[in-house]
């Protein structure tokens, strides 16, 4: 009887010890290193379809409207991508990277777009209130690959680098679309003038 009680107490102690080790380490890893997400939407439809796997915990929704680079299968087959937080810990992104960021219009939502221009670049916009925009210091210009169906910088302007969440580095699912995502800038969207190389 006493042995069973002692065993039960030991089990509870071991459980809590493991709990307090596993939960902070896992949460820190998912916040700081990498996480996996499923893409939804058509704005990056050529390339990615992403939506968050742990939606119920983080209450974030990825809507991604891109050209056929993500989610070519449409609604039936969503792409799953690996989001890398560690590579943007110093906020160094390149033109052509696919990044996820907090939506400037709705802070509960995360959007995934391609970086078109960095600070200091002058670009020609599609449907923005100004025809030519110089990206301010500390901001970037993001666009979805599917221009007609994309809620991106052409709608809300340059976004602050502080809203950057992660960089999408690999497509993990479906298996026939396993690939490493290379930074690729569409040639028609190159900036007119580059401040930095």
């Amino acid at each position, binding site marked *: 009887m006493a042995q069973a009680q002692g065993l039960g107490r030991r089990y509870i102690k071991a459980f809590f010890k493991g709990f*307090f*080790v596993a*939960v*902070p*380490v896992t*949460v*820190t890893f998912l*916040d*700081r290193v990498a996480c996996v997400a499923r893409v939804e939407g058509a704005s990056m439809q050529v390339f990615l379809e992403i939506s968050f796997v742990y939606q119920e915990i983080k209450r974030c929704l990825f809507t991604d409207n891109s050209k056929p680079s993500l989610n070519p299968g449409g609604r039936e087959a969503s792409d799953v991508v690996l989001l890398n937080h560690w590579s943007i810990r*110093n*906020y160094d992104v390149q033109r052509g990277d696919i990044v996820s960021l*907090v*939506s*400037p*219009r*709705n*802070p*509960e939502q995360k959007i995934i777009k391609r970086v078109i221009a960095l600070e200091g670049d002058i670009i020609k916009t599609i449907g923005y209130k100004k025809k030519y925009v110089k990206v*301010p*210091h*500390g*901001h970037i210009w993001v666009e979805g690959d599917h221009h007609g169906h994309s809620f991106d910088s052409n709608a809300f302007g340059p*976004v*602050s*680098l*502080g*809203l*950057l969440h992660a960089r999408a580095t690999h497509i993990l699912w479906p298996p026939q679309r396993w690939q490493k995502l290379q930074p690729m800038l569409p040639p028609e969207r190159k900036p007119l003038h580059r401040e930095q190389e």
Partner: protein
Amino acid sequence: MGARVVGTCGAGGWRRARWRAGRASWAPYHCRMLRNALGKAFRFLGYTVQYGCIAHCAFEYLGGIVVCSGPSMEPTIQNSDIVFSESLSRHFYCIRKGDIVIVKSPNDPKSNICKRVIGLEGDKVCTSNPSDFLKSHSYVPKGHVWLEGDNLRNSTDSRCYGPVPYGLIRGRICLKCRTQLGLYENVEHAAAHFNCYSLNFCLLYTP
């Protein structure tokens, strides 16, 4: 009775000592030292990782201590004041008008700024300087907040860089640490001076 107990312990102890000596004899001394040192190093690394992760979770989801610098929030927060910030309001989206918030700077993501929320999305705010004759107003866009420092004459805030997206808010300041500096002199030891700091906390007034 007593002699029997001693006898049993003595025999058992002798057997244990023989077993330990047998085990130890095949492993050289420096190997054992290296194994011990490696074991200690791994345990230290494990504890460091575990406590680092707990600290990250605490700062990210609960709150932390912040040291403010600059004159833009005087007289509420002076230069080099220590304040406590909590992150729960940001995660549950209940930042209110009048809260003092820590925000990532829109122009430099690696630095933080500390201002008061003057307007939430949809509010009408005055965008011109106090010294201007003609006042201009605008509405705060969806998903943004309007920030201003308490020291309006010496503050670069939303009047300078526009409304700030809600996603840049890091935390809300809830407590300020009030420091009092007193100087005491010990009469018996003529050359001894010592300073005494007493810390007490005051709730920051948020209208």
